[in-house]
């Protein structure tokens, strides 16, 4: 079936099988491979994107459910060649190693701060509970998010 939606500010229209997962639609149909699939069961959060301003795990959303929606992926976060402050903070604070969880982690963190601009460290940890990282031990991820919250 045909779906129309907005992805990273551009209108797109594609024919998809009804069972197509949003993450596969983004990766395979649109070539937006920045969003990674870590567990395909919404445990790990690597596939997190924004759907109408909400952080969702795109491995457990059907593409057809995004009909008419506005999606932002990691590729749509930087603007005019300028990194988003969260991307910059992950770089500055060494918030990543292998980088596989990073796109989803950044998308979750951006969404989290939009809803809680001045969090405590404990709130950051709680807010990112749905995103797993196996390399960093989370310390520097939390530092990065706190730095953006503090306006560093």
């Amino acid at each position, binding site marked *: 079936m045909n779906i129309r939606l907005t992805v990273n500010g551009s209108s797109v229209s594609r024919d998809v*099988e009804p*069972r*197509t997962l949003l993450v*596969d639609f983004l*990766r395979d149909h649109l070539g*937006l*491979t*920045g*969003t*990674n*699939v*870590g*567990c*395909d*069961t919404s*445990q*790990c959060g*690597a596939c997190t994107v924004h759907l109408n301003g909400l952080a969702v795990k795109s491995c457990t959303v059907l593409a057809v459910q995004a009909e008419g929606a506005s999606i932002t*992926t*990691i*590729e749509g*976060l*930087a603007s005019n060649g300028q*990194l988003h402050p969260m*991307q910059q903070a*992950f*770089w*500055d604070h*060494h918030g*990543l*190693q*292998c*980088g*596989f*969880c*990073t*796109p989803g982690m*950044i998308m979750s963190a951006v969404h989290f701060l939009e809803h809680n601009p001045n969090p405590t460290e404990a709130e950051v940890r709680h807010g990112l509970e749905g995103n*797993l*990282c*196996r*390399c960093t031990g989370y310390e520097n991820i939390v530092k990065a998010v706190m730095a953006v919250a503090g306006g560093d």
Partner: protein
Amino acid sequence: MARYVGSPVKRLEDPRLITGDARYLDDIKLPGMAHVAVLRSAYAHARIRGIDTSQAAAAPGVIGVFTGKDFEDLNPLPCAWQAGGVENHVNTPRVLEIDRVTFTGAGIAAVVAETPYQAADALALIEVDYEPLPVVVHGPDAIKPGAPQIHENAPNNICMSWQCGDEEGTDAALGAADVVVEQDLDNQRLIPTPMEPRGAIADYSAGTEEFTVWLTSQAPHVGRLLMTAFVFGIPETKMRVIAPQIGGGFGTKIFLYHEYILVAALARKLGRPVKWMEGRSENYVATTHGRDHHTHLKVGADRDGHIKALKVSTVANLGGMLSTIAPGIPTTLYGRMLSGVYKIPHIHCHVTGVYTNTGMVDAYRGAGRPEATYVVERAVDLVANALGMDPAEVRRRNFIQPDDFPYEPTDNLLNGLAYDSGDYEVALDKALAVADYAGLRQMQARARDEGRYIGIGLSSYVEICGVAPSRWIGVLGEGWGAGLWESANVRVHLTGQVVATTGSQSHGQGHETSMAQVVADELGVPIESVIVQHSDTLGTPFGYGTYGSRSAAVGTVAMYKSLQRIKDKAKRLGAHMLEADVADVVYEDGKVYVKGSPDKAKTIVEIAGAAALGYDLPQDMEPYLDDTAYYDPPNCTFPFGTHICVVELDADTGGVKLLRYVAV
């Protein structure tokens, strides 16, 4: 002067990772690429009486359905590290298993289809006629009389029986000890879980008979060697292996797996590129697990807490088949480290490697050494408990002292190597101070009065890292089937850009930055002028890959050696350009100049340009600044530390809450 090493350089690899621009294996699409799905066994132990692929073959989008019989011409996977000096009863996976399965991760059929969805659909249509067999999953149960027998060539499910140290001396010392404590310990199995599962893509050119294979690999050169020379039986030069951006490994991506052979064989059979990407559920059953030791220890000490002897007997559960280096982990990397940070006069270790109907077990984070540390540290705590002494004090009384180094553990435990250096008490003292150990003990006592249970755990450890001297791991019977040096190539291009390649591999470690720091400092060039390349057998010298904390300790030293020779050549050419004697010039800060005349210097960019053009070189000098080095370390490294962990146990629910963690 070091400008980059030791300073907080932002990682050079990060821009592509934080923008989603990095290309992991699953991001790669080749023209005409088909997709592979692998059918795993529904049983942990079964005979396969028949496989009906007809419905699957007729499903939409299916290009072909394959079973083990289609790949009978290919060898089983090699076991590249067997337990040294003893017989190993080896059973390794085939491309697809043919008539029997010994764990649920075993692959028994494969579908190739136009899309991953179609491949998965068709997989569900394959009918397998299984004859389920009795299973055994627990290591110690596998060697009991009457246990289900898993492999014909491994009676009592024993893969190998290995020992180190001195049993007679240890028994005698235990007999003479004031106090002897015995304990059974489980070091439970775990699943390594890198965020990126495994995958492989293969492309085959019939015209050249050459494969190009993309692997989620920590050791692409080794992967190529094993695939070509051991499984396909083709020249190594007929395959190029590329490990693209890798999303973590934790050991699991060192090994050769059956799916990697499968995609290569399918690409050759079908004449089109094929991709297999593991799902997470598959990762749990088909990718290697870690640990799974069941140990009985006996430790003897005198009344003052001096440990006199340690006797260890371990059943190491290796799973249903052997992964690439499975037997080496619970032997060389475990038994040989059972002296820990302590001067123990008598040690003996016996390891039985056993088959069970479980997933394959191989190297995971630390691999063998954390298991050894757990045993030694529990032994120390048991002695402390038996004598009513403070565990920190027992550690202190048994530490190898700074002037004991180089320290060779007793009874040739380390098979000729010695710990190079260490000061274990300093690490302990610092950890105790940071954690306020005395305060913690008071808090623990107060809590106990209130009916609360707080536990304070100490671990003083040493690892064997930077693996390893080839003459130790190879010649002296450790069973490793290769060398363990590492390689590097450095080239300074005509434009002054520096390309450094390494035979090791980065899957999150940050080699592209850390190695560039060394290159930039040594050559005296901006880090922006340096690019570190790795993980492609075309364009990097052969290397053994990344594991065992070896990339910096071994790989970067190879690069350092290359850089010294590049600088020597630059000095000779610089002297020639300055019409000076080479003995009179220095290389400093990216320039060659006559001592005392830094204002009349030739920069590395000018020298590299002259070397690349070759118009005017000293007699007998070859053009170009280009050097390849191989470094084989004289010893491993022995990093150490102390960790303190404080937890509260809820006696009603069994819940454990982490209160404090200090690492020095």
